[in-house]
C-alpha cells in the first residue's frame, strides 16, 4: 500500500484554518488525516521538522506553450518546472497554436498531461475563436471538455460588445472571465511603461492607464452582466484602486498579480536587459507600493506567475524586438516568502492562502487544501536556508528570468502530487527512499 507519513512539520492549511505543527497521513494518493502525533505504522516517513508543509501550490496563470511552441516549453517541461517550484496544479493559457478554442485541444492537453505531465493541468479556454477578438468561441463545448476559465490572454478583448456578450454567456456556464487588460490603441508599439525610464532609454512607452482603462471597462461590464471577472497580472496602482472599489460594491471581481510586480519596478531596467521586458511592463515605484498594499489588504486575491518561457534567441536581440515575458514557476514561492512574508507585508498563512485555496476558488477546482479525502498534493518548503537563483538549473526550457543570482529563501524540498513524490531537492533526504 502506498502510505506516507509527513512528520513534525509546520503545517499551514488556510482552507481548514490549520497553522500549527502536525503530521500528515497519506494513503493511496489521498489525505487520510492531519493531526498531532499520528500513530501510523509505515516505513515511508518524511521527517519535516523545521520545515513548512502546505497544500501543493496552484498557479492559475501559466503558459505551457504546447501545442505549437514546443521549442519554448512543453507540457512535460513546464509541469516539471512547476513541481520544482512546489506547484502541483497549473492553469494553462490558451495562446497556443492551435489555440484552446475547441474541445479537441482541451482533450489533447488533458491527454498529454496525463501521459507526460508532472502535475495537474487545467486548460483555460479562449474567449473568442482563434483568439481574434471577433466571434465568441464555443464556450459551452469548452466547458463540457473541462476548461476552468476563459481568457484570450496575450490578446486583449478590445471589442466591448463581444466582452459583454461573452460575460453574459459565460455566467450561465459558471466560468470566470480572465482578461489581459490592455488598451491596444494606448499601448501601441510601446515596450515598457511610460515614465522616466522609457525617456532615459529612448524606448517607446505604454501609459499605465492602458491597463486601468480596461480593468474599469471590464468591471462595469461585470456589474451589468453579473459575470465573474478576474484581472490577470495586475500591474498598476490605478487597477488596484478599481478592484478595491468593485469589491466594496460586492461585485464578483477578483485579481492576481505576479512576483515581478511586487519585487521589480521600471527602475530596474538600467540598460537594455530584455529579461525585464514583459506585458504588462514593470510599473513605477508607486505602482509597486500600491500592489504590495493591495496584497496586504486582500484586494488582490491570488499570486500567479504568468510563466512565459521563450527561446534564448527571442530574448538575446533588440529590446524592441524581444519577446515579452519571463519564466516564473521555479521562483514563485521564494520570491513570495523573501519579498512578501519576511518584510511582513503578509503573514505566511496569508501567502499560502493566496497561492492555494484562493486561485482554486477562482477556477472552481477542488484543490489547494489538505482536507481529509482530498488528493494528496503536498509541498514541503525550507524557509530558513538561503539559496541563489540559478537559471542554468531550471527544469523549464526557458531561462528568461530577471532574478538569476538573487539570494532567496523558501525553496521547495519535496513536491508530492497525488501521493507521489514528483520533485525532491538534491539536499533533502528521506530515509530509505530515492526519487
Amino acid at each position, binding site marked *: 500500500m502506498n502510505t506516507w507519513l509527513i512528520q513534525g512539520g509546520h503545517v499551514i492549511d488556510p482552507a481548514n484554518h490549520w497553522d500549527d505543527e502536525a503530521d500528515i497521513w497519506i494513503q493511496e494518493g489521498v489525505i487520510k488525516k492531519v493531526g498531532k502525533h499520528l500513530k501510523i505504522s509505515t516505513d515511508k516517513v518524511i521527517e519535516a521538522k523545521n520545515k513548512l508543509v502546505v497544500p501543493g501550490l496552484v498557479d492559475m496563470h501559466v503558459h505551457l506553450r504546447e501545442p505549437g511552441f514546443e521549442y519554448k516549453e512543453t507540457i512535460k517541461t513546464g509541469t516539471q518546472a512547476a513541481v520544482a517550484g512546489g506547484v502541483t496544479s497549473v492553469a494553462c493559457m490558451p495562446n497556443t497554436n492551435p489555440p484552446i478554442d475547441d474541445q479537441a485541444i482541451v482533450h489533447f492537453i488533458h491527454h498529454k498531461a496525463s501521459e507526460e505531465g508532472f502535475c495537474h493541468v487545467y486548460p483555460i479556454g479562449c474567449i473568442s475563436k482563434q483568439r481574434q477578438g471577433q466571434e465568441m468561441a464555443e464556450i459551452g463545448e469548452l466547458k463540457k471538455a473541462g476548461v476552468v476559465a476563459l481568457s484570450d490572454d496575450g490578446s486583449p478583448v478590445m471589442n466591448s460588445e463581444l466582452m459583454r456578450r461573452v460575460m453574459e454567456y459565460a455566467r450561465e456556464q459558471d466560468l470566470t472571465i480572465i482578461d489581459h487588460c490592455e488598451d491596444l490603441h494606448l499601448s501601441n508599439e510601446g515596450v515598457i511603461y511610460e515614465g522616466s525610464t522609457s525617456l532615459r*532609454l*529612448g*524606448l517607446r512607452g505604454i501609459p499605465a492607464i492602458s491597463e486601468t482603462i480596461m480593468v474599469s471597462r471590464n468591471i462595469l461590464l461585470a456589474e451589468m452582466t453579473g459575470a465573474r471577472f478576474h484581472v490577470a497580472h495586475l500591474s498598476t496602482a490605478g487597477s488596484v484602486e478599481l478592484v478595491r472599489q468593485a469589491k466594496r460594491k460586492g461585485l464578483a471581481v477578483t485579481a492576481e498579480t505576479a512576483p515581478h510586480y511586487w519585487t521589480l519596478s521600471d527602475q530596474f531596467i538600467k540598460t*537594455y536587459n530584455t529579461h525585464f521586458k514583459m506585458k504588462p511592463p514593470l510599473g513605477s515605484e508607486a505602482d509597486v507600493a500600491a500592489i504590495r498594499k493591495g496584497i496586504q489588504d486582500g484586494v488582490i486575491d491570488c499570486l500567479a506567475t504568468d510563466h512565459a518561457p521563450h527561446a534564448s534567441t527571442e530574448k538575446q*536581440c*533588440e529590446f*524592441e*524586438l524581444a519577446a515579452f515575458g519571463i519564466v516564473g514557476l521555479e521562483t514563485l514561492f521564494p520570491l513570495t516568502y523573501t519579498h512578501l512574508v519576511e518584510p511582513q507585508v503578509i503573514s505566511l498563512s496569508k501567502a499560502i492562502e493566496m497561492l492555494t485555496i484562493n486561485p482554486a476558488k477562482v477556477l472552481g477546482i477542488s484543490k489547494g487544501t489538505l482536507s481529509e479525502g482530498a488528493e494528496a498534493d503536498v509541498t514541503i518548503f525550507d524557509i530558513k536556508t538561503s539559496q541563489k537563483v540559478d537559471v542554468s538549473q531550471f527544469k523549464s526550457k526557458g531561462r528568461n528570468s530577471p532574478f538569476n543570482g538573487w539570494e532567496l529563501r523558501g525553496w521547495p524540498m519535496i513536491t508530492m502530487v497525488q501521493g507521489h513524490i514528483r520533485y525532491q531537492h538534491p539536499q533533502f533526504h528521506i530515509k530509505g527512499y530515492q526519487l
Partner: protein
Amino acid sequence: MIWKSKDLLSIEELSKNEIETILETAVSFKSVSERTVKKVPTLRGKTVVLFFQEPSTRTRTSFELASKRLSADNLTIQSSASSLTKGETLLDTMKTLESMKIDALVIRHSCSGIPHLLAQSMQASVINAGDGFHEHPTQALLDLLTVRENHPHLDQLTITFVGDILHSRVVRSNIYAFKKMGARIRVCGPPTLLPKDFEKWGVEVFYHLDAALQGTDVIYVLRLQLERQKKNLFPTLREYSQLYGITSDRLLKANSGAIVLHPGPMNRGIEISSGVADGSAARIDDQVSNGVAIRMAVLYLLLGENPERRTP
C-alpha cells in the same frame, strides 16, 4: 588624460573630463582637414566597419572621411531593417564581422540599446552613431564644439531645443552634454512630443515657443519626422510650422547674437525657414565640418596606441 574605455555608447556615461578631452583632440584634428594633404597615418592598419541600418548620408560620410583621414581601412555596410529579419540575427552578423578581426564598429540602428548589446559581446570598439530614440553621442560632441567656438563659456549660456523632443536621440545626448558643461537647458515642442517627465532631467519645459526663446543664446532646431503627423501627434505640418517653426521674426525673440543649429537634414519651410537656415545666425555648416573632427578624435582616442586602455 589617458583614454580608458573601449566603446563610445552614450554621453550619459561620459565625465566632463572625458568630454573635454574629446573636444581638445578634435580641435587639434581640425587643422588636418585644412591641409592640402588631408591625411595622417595615425590609424594605419586598423579596420573600421560602418554598419548603418538606417539611412544617414551625413553621419555615415562624416565617419568615413574621419577614418580615411586617419588612414584606417574602412568598410561600409548598409542594411535595411528588412534584410535583417531573414533569419540571420543582428548578433549573428556581428559575430561574422568579429571573426574578420575588425578594430571598430560604428553602428547606426533604429532600435535603442543596440550599441550596448553589441559592445557586451564584441572585442572591437563600438561607437554609437545613433540608436533609436536613445542617444547620438558624436552629434552632441560636435554640437558642443560648434557652440563653444561661439560661446567659450558654456556654463553661462542658455540653449533651447525646439521640436520633437520625445523621439529625439540628438536631444537626449545634447541634454547630457550641455548639462555636464553647466549650460542652462530648455526644451520646447508640442505637448504630444514633449512629456512633462523631461522636467526630471533638470531642464525647463516650454510649450510656447516665444516664451522659450526669451533669453536664449542658442536655438537648436530639431528635424521633424514628417510621418509623426499620421500618428495624431500634431494636426498638420502647416500648424506645426506656425507654432514651432523658426523664422527670422521668431529669431528676434531670442537674445541678440543668438545662433541657430540643426542636425540635418532640414525640412525647409517646416521647422526652419530658408531665411534662417541660410542667414547669419546659422552655424549648420560649422556643425558639419566639426563633425569630421569630432569623429576623428573619437576614433583616435578609442583606437590609437594606448597601453593603458583596458582590453576586454
